[in-house]
């Protein structure tokens, strides 16, 4: 069975048919070549596949494609403008908030969503918010530092 969907992916409207069992991560990777969306656990646990749906983080591996029909999906490739980095990407780079980088796209999107809701999150809020994103490499300190930097940068820019 296929289902027609129409949605906005990284600012561009896309209309196509998907199988009822297709999940967002696979469609983004395989159909649109958006391989920045990484699949770690494939069970909605690690957050590596996090993408934004109408600005809210969801796990792409555990969300059916038909469920995002009519919505707006943002992936890591959709952040930043014309090759420039978004403030969160810039902060992750400056703070060295990644090692292997496999969790990084999901982390950056998750943090982007946090800063849309709370422009000045305290450390406890940051750590709680990141509960959905596992990083096995860094020990998280550099990531928390990157969130603080990004928050400062966003505050300064506005």
């Amino acid at each position, binding site marked *: 069975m296929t289902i027609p969907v129409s949605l906005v992916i990284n600012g561009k409207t896309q209309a196509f048919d998907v199988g009822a069992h297709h999940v967002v991560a696979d469609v983004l990777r395989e159909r649109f070549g958006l*391989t920045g969306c990484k699949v*770690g656990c494939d069970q909605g646990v690690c957050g590596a596949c996090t993408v934004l749906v109408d600005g809210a983080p969801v796990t792409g591996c555990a969300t059916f494609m038909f469920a995002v029909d009519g919505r707006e999906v943002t992936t890591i490739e959709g952040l930043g403008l014309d090759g420039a980095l978004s403030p969160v*990407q810039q902060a992750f780079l400056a703070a060295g908030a990644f090692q*292997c*980088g*496999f969790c990084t796209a999901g982390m950056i999107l998750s943090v982007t969503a946090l800063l849309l809701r709370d422009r000045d999150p305290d450390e406890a809020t940051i750590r709680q918010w990141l509960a959905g994103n596992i990083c096995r490499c860094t020990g998280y300190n550099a990531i928390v530092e990157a969130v603080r930097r990004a928050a400062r940068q966003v505050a300064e820019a506005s």
Partner: protein
Amino acid sequence: MSAVASTSHEGFAEFRKKVTGGGVYAFDICVDRMLHGKLLRSPHAHARIRSIDLRAALQIPGVVSIITGEDLRDLPDPYYGVGLRDQPVIAMDRVRYAGDVVAAVTAVDEQTAFRATQAIMVDYEPLPALMSVAAALAPGAPLIFEEPTRGGSPVLGAGSGFRIDPAPNVLYEYSFAYGDADHWLGAADQVFTDTFDISRINHYHLEPYVNVAWWSGSRVEMWSCNQDPFVLRADISRIFGMPVNDVRIHTPLIGGGFGGKSYCKMEPLLALMARKAGAPVRLALSMDESLLTLVKHPASLTLTTGLDAHGRLLARRARIDLDGGAYCDASTLVAIKTGFRIGGPYAWKAIDSCARVIRTTTVPSGSFRGFGGTQASWASERQMDMIARRRGEYPLALRRRNLLKVGQPFAPNDSGMDCDLAAGLDQLVAQMPPAARKSGRGMGFAIGIKDAGGTGNHAQAQVRLNQRGDVMVSAAAVDIGQGGPAAMCAIATQALGRPFGSATYAAVDTEHTPPDNGTHVSCATTITGLAVEAAALDARAQLLAFGAARLGCAAADLELEGWSLRHGAELHPLEPMIRSYYGGVGWEFAGRGSFKEPYNPATPMGARNVSWMPCWSGAEVEVDGETGQVAVLRLVVGADAGRALDLGACHGQIEGAAAQAFAQAMFEELRYQGESPANATPLTYRVPRAADMPAAFSSFVAEHGLGAGPGGLKGIGEAGMVGIAAAIANAIEDACGASLTRIPFTPERVLEALDAQSSNICAASK
């Protein structure tokens, strides 16, 4: 491990890719006509395979081919393992743990391959499972392997000994001794014997094991997440009986490994699948399967330690049992390193240590960050505190009295200590402000230690310098998150006097890349770094020789200044000089460099250890005496980078390792229930999340400048793993008197230890 020139995170193109989604991992590799593989795994811990019926599976549309043990028949040497080779490429007549691979399906897509695995009928004859070391060693226990083990021991030297298959279900035994332990333990003023246990954990690297392979004629090509491309090339060549040059491995970015992706695993099986299918095949394991592929060795360590009347350490005897699981993997090396490192960072008159690897019908144990150093340091540093307390002295005083001094060899004929252990301890203590004495609170310290750089390791490198002064660094240090390529570029540009941003790290491809022994044992910055430095200096010498010939002077009269040559008062821009001579597209000065730590049979490891990796660890805890709950309030961990190329990267390595050690100490564990793991799923296997970390968690980077690498640097990638557990247990004892000897420190164990302590006190007061 590695570290990189400051500001490099922003200037290094590879780093930028990691924040834009542009980084390419083996997981992302997709080739034309690519098929997909899925594996069928044994539900039994131990069984004979009577027959496998593939008929139904092969009839499913889209199924291309299926590999079973039958397909190994025409392979000349279908086993792998480090030194000792006992793991078949796929199960032949027997399965030896729940998770052992029985059949491998290749199909047009993953769903079809998965459905086919479910349609395969395997007739098993269950055999008795041996789920623990005790069960495997019990008299009359069935043998997990009936035939003698193939292969031999890794290289060893003076003072070290080994036995292969020394007893039923014992794979390997390593012994290490110097001095007369009997004499010194007999002469000791005090002797203490304690036993320590450590649990089984998994790497939980976020990128699962994934490889893509295809054949063209007699050659096989593979995109691999393996961190040791040349080791893998050698294994595939041996297993298939083909020249190494017919095996080509590409290593893109690796999504974490921590040892889990070192040495050969399922890659030869994939090569076989691709050969049979006659098409490219991608085999991506799930994270569940990663949990069934490799773990860190659970172990039990009994230490007998003697001291003289002044509290000086005299001798230690260690009896170590490592649970090796079903197959060898890197167990030989882990046994060697655990046994060798058991003395910790102290001076002894005698050591007598013996580490055995016992086979059980559980997930194979192998390489994991810390590599025996975790197990040895846990037991050693925990016992140091216990001894100090029994002697009624401050644990740090006992440590300080016995620490190895700078330059003092760790063992006879080995390299000297290349850092100031006492200075590091002072730095640690300075970062642990004495908390207000409060009941239930306590502080603990530990100095874990591990050698780094491997045994007799080597690396080669090429550094190409073009007419514009751009640098291309080519070496086999792969990027597994440690920033190895950036470190290599920093080393090359420092040696050349070029800006960091002028360097590019070439893709790792065994067809072009100069070889090394693999990106593990924290060797990249030191071993590969020295090769890169030598290659850069060679390129520079070629450039100066060229300039000297053009200018009609001696190379010694020239100096590189920016991208010009200074000759006395004259400055000659290089690009026009090179272009005017070579024309065309320009020229490259291609420098070659290499490093080899020579074998030396007089040393215990068979070669000097290249460097030493101490881990100064401090913990402050609060223990709830009612519930046994432990809160780690502060964790400080430091390591010596020798010279830090990039402080941020060093902190990241130390903290990342410490986070893994913290989780193992507190809660993380792969548990068995009956014959199968109870929590081998991403959801039930708990790793630390951001909010799980101690409220105050920090690291420091010492730069003692004595490392063997370029400019005194050395590896630190594993350091953070090896001191944390002991520091936390020592803090728990300081807080409430509960003496813990088993990891993890669950509330039940804390309460048990508290009960034991109060009954001891009662007994003593009677």
